C-alpha cells in the first residue's frame, strides 16, 4: 500500500443470497452485485465511479461505508483494515467516512428539524454538547449556503437543492476526511446541480476532503473528478485519469457510454457516430461468464466467452490507465 492512498480497496466482493421458503430457507442463487472490485483513492482526490443503474455502484458505496458487510475482500482506510470490523468497532470509522445520498427527499427524517438532523451526528460522537451544538449547526448551515435562522424548520419546507445542502451539512458535521457522494445531484434540476457541485468542490478545497463520487451522468463526473472508474455488472472495466478517459477510452463499454454524452456543438454532434448497445444489462443473478460485457459487445470473440480479461494496461494508454478487455484499443468518441 502506498503511503498517500487514503482508501485502498482490494478484490471487494458482495453477493446477496436469493432464498426461497419461509421456515426452511433454501438458497436458490446469488446476486453478484459487486464481484472483485479494486481501486485506491489518494488523499484529497476525487474518484468518479460511473456505470448504469444496477451495476453495483451504490452497493460499493454501502460496503465502503460499512453499511453492508463484504462477502470477501479488504477495505483499508488510512492504513487500517476496516472491512472486518463489526458493530461498535465501526464507530471511529463513522467519524471519518460520511455519505451524501442521492434522494434529498428520502434521506432526511421528515419528523426532525434540519437543526436536529445536522446536530444529531455531533451528539452521537459527543463533538459538542448543549448550546454548543446549536452554534456549530448554524455555522455549518451558513457554510453550505443555508440560512442559519431556518434551523428549526422541517425538511419538507425546503427545496430539493436546499435539502441536498442539508444532506451535505449533515455529512460535514462530524468533520470527516472522506465523503462518499452517491449520485448527489441526479435527483436535482440541472440548474441546481451546478450549485451543489460547486459547493462540493469548494468544501473539498477548504477542508482537504477526499471524495468517491458516484454518478451515471458522465458530464457531471467530468466536472468534479480527478480520476474515473467505469463499472459494468459488478466489475471495474476501466480506470483512468479524467482527461485520459475522455480522450482515449480503451474499453468498448466506456466508448459506448461516452458516445452517448451530448456534445455542445451541433455540427460535431451530427457528424459523430453513436455506439448504440444492443439489449439490456444482463441480470447480476447468473451474469455472463468470462467477460461480462460479451453479450452486448460488437468486438466479442470466442475468447471473451471463455477467458475473463484482467484489468491491465494496454498501449497506447499508460500504466495508470488499465482496461479489462482482450481487444482494448483507443478510440476517439467525444
Amino acid at each position, binding site marked *: 500500500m502506498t503511503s498517500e492512498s487514503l482508501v485502498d480497496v482490494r478484490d471487494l466482493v458482495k453477493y446477496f443470497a436469493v432464498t426461497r421458503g419461509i421456515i426452511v430457507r433454501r438458497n436458490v442463487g446469488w446476486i453478484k452485485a459487486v464481484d472483485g472490485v479494486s481501486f485506491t483513492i489518494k488523499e484529497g482526490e476525487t474518484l468518479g465511479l460511473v456505470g448504469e443503474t444496477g451495476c453495483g455502484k451504490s452497493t460499493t458505496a454501502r460496503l465502503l461505508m460499512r453499511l453492508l458487510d463484504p462477502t470477501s475482500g479488504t477495505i483499508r482506510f488510512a492504513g487500517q483494515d476496516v472491512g472486518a470490523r463489526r458493530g*461498535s468497532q465501526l464507530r471511529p470509522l463513522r467519524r471519518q467516512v*460520511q455519505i451524501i*445520498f442521492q434522494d434529498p427527499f*428520502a434521506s*432526511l*427524517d421528515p*419528523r426532525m428539524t434540519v437543526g436536529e438532523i445536522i446536530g*444529531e451526528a455531533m451528539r452521537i460522537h459527543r463533538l459538542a454538547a448543549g448550546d454548543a451544538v446549536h452554534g456549530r449547526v448554524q455555522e455549518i448551515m451558513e457554510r453550505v449556503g443555508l*440560512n442559519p435562522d431556518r434551523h428549526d424548520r422541517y425538511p419538507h419546507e425546503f427545496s430539493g437543492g436546499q435539502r441536498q445542502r442539508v444532506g451535505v451539512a*449533515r455529512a460535514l458535521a462530524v468533520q470527516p476526511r472522506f465523503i462518499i457522494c452517491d449520485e448527489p445531484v441526479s435527483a436535482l434540476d440541472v440548474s441546481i446541480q451546478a450549485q451543489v457541485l460547486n459547493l462540493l468542490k469548494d468544501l473539498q478545497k477548504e477542508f482537504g476532503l477526499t471524495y468517491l463520487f458516484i454518478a451515471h451522468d458522465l458530464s457531471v463526473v467530468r466536472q468534479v473528478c480527478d480520476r474515473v472508474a467505469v463499472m459494468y455488472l459488478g466489475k471495474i472495466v476501466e480506470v483512468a485519469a479524467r482527461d485520459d478517459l475522455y480522450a482515449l477510452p480503451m474499453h468498448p463499454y466506456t466508448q459506448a457510454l461516452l458516445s452517448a454524452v451530448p456534445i455542445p456543438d451541433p455540427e460535431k454532434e451530427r457528424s459523430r457516430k453513436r455506439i448504440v448497445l444492443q439489449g439490456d444489462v444482463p441480470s447480476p443473478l447468473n451474469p455472463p461468464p468470462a467477460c461480462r460485457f460479451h453479450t452486448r459487445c460488437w468486438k466479442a470473440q470466442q475468447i471473451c466467452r471463455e477467458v475473463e480479461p484482467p484489468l491491465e494496461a494496454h498501449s497506447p494508454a499508460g500504466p495508470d490507465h488499465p482496461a479489462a478487455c482482450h481487444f482494448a484499443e483507443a478510440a476517439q468518441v467525444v
Partner: protein
Amino acid sequence: MATVETSAGVAAPEVRSLRGETWRRLRRNRMAIAGIAIIALVALAAIFADLIATQPTEGFFADQARESPSARHWFGTDQLGLDLFSRVVHGTRISLMVGFSVVASILLVGIVVGGAAGYFGGIADTLLSRLIDVFLGFPFLVGTIILVTALGGGKMAVIVAIAFFSWPGIARLFRGSVISIRGSEYVEAARALGAGHLRMFFRHVLPNSVTPTLVYAFALIPTTIIAEAALSFLGFGIQNPAEPSWGLMIARYRPLIQTEPHLVIFPGMALTMTAMGFILLGDGLRDALDPRLR
C-alpha cells in the same frame, strides 16, 4: 395571493406541523366532533361519578324496588331498589378502565414484539411472526372465556384475557410499518453517522411508523369495551353483582325485560353510545391521518 413578508424580508412559507394539520382536518369532520363530544361526556361521567350519581350502587332497598323512571330515579330502580342512573354512571368507570388498560398494554406488547420482529428481521422476525400467527389463529371469544375463567374472573382477569388475545393484530401492523421505515435512507444515514440501535429505533423508526398503529389501537377501544360487556353478560367476566358493569347489568336485568324494559335499555344505550363515540372518533382520526386524502 400576495406572499407574506416577515420582518427579515423573507417570504414565510405556511408552517404546519402534522399534528396541527390532523387537528384541522378532524375539526371539519362532523362525525368525529360528535364522537369527541360523546367521549367527553362519558369521561366526565367517569371522573365525576361520585358527584353526579350520589345514590348507592349496592345494597338492598325493598321500599323502592323496580320503580319506573321518575324525577328522583331518572332511569328507575332495579329489583334490589338500587338507582339505575347511579349504576350506569358508575359503570362508565369500568368500561373506560377496561378499554384503556387493555389498549395501553397491547400497545406496549405489540410495539415491543412487532418492533423487534420488524427492526431486527431474520430469525427474530420468523419466530415472532409465527407466534403472532398462532395467537391470531385462536377464536377470540373462546380464548378469552377460557382464560378469564382460568384467572378466576373479575376486572383484572378480563383485562388480561382480552389483552392476551388482542396484541397480535397491533404487533403485525406495527411490524409492517417498521419494515417499511427501517429500509429508508434517513435510517441508513443515521447508521452511517454511527447511531446505535436504540437511537435509530426511538429517534427515527418509531416516530415515523407508529401513527397507523396508534389509530388502529384507538379503534380497538370500543371493541374492547364491548368484549368486556359480552364476557360479563355471558357470565364469565365481572361477576360480582355489586360492580356496575354494563354487560353484567344487562344479563341480570334480562329476566325483567318484559315488565321493566328500561332496566335493559339504559345500560344497553350507555354501552352503544360509548362504543359509537370511540368508533366515530377513530374513523375520523384514520381519515385525518390518511396521507392519500391529504
